[in-house]
């Protein structure tokens, strides 16, 4: 009983200390950032609304959510799925998606017996406009060197087991073509909304090192 109380107190104190430091130490980054922004706004040198807009754009308009929404729509709309596979450029342009690194996009659909995975062995080419920033591991020499040579083993190490009957197709982005994997729709997702479906589509599944989440 007393151990529990001690532990609780310690934990409470740590949390309290961090919070205290953050809000009451004038050298804390939180207070410095607030001071800087407020001073500039008060002097008329900075428009706060512009700062808000920049942050909001970053939080909502970029990142793998864009790709996830495409996948969710492809899962629920066969025509859209066909268009995405046949001509991803036209399809995403029609959806209003533009951005760097999308000179030419190809969507590779996973299906029973076929699993796709993407890499850039020469550098770290990545479809930024639909997936946001590439994760560190995608850019690592470990991934770039090994996934073309032993993809089954690399995927297994990363938590994805494929059975022997599943063919593996590795796509090395050595030109300006960029690849997006369309993961298989998990079972038990009938009736979910597009938003709920998109939440199941991880960045890793659109690179090809994971399956989509099951609900």
């Amino acid at each position, binding site marked *: 009983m007393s151990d529990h109380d001690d532990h609780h107190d310690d934990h409470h104190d740590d949390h309290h200390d961090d919070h205290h430091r953050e809000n*009451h130490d004038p050298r804390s980054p939180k207070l410095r950032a607030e001071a800087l922004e407020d001073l500039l706004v008060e002097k008329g040198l*900075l428009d706060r609304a512009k700062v808000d807009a*920049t942050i909001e754009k970053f939080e909502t308009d970029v990142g793998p959510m864009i790709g*996830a929404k495409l996948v969710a729509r492809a899962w629920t709309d066969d025509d859209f799925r066909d268009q995405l596979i046949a001509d991803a450029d036209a399809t995403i342009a029609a959806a209003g998606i533009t951005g760097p690194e999308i000179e030419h996009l190809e969507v590779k659909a996973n299906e029973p017996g076929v699993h796709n995975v993407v890499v850039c062995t020469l550098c770290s080419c990545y479809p930024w406009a639909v997936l946001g920033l590439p994760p560190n591991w995608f850019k690592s020499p470990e991934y770039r060197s090994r996934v073309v040579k032993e993809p089954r083993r690399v995927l297994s190490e990363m938590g994805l087991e494929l059975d022997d009957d599943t063919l593996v197709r590795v796509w090395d982005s050595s030109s300006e073509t960029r690849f997006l994997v369309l993961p298989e729709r998990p079972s038990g997702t009938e009736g979910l909304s597009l938003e709920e479906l998109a939440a199941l589509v*991880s960045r890793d599944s659109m690179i090809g090192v994971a399956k989509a989440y099951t609900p």
Partner: protein
Amino acid sequence: MSLPTSGPGAPPRSNGELLFDAPWEARAFGVAAALVDQGTFGWQDFRNELIVAIDAWEQSGSDDSEYRYYECWLTALERIATSHELASAGDLANRAEAYAARPHGHDH
């Protein structure tokens, strides 16, 4: 754990896109981007300060990489604000002191 306070809803964590670990990071980011956008200073000037700040951090041998990157950003931003006479170091310090003296519970 802090979640972003602006924008329609929190970013989806299952995608690994935890955008900012604390709201102040988002603010520091947004302030720098806005100032460059409006031409108050050039990106190269800011970048040079960022190089110095990151290098100093790397020299210090800290393991706390993620947190420190945004500290570097803020340090660079403060330096360029003072070098471009947007705010004095004294004003910045005074304001931070004033905020530090706010009663506990200010944010809640």
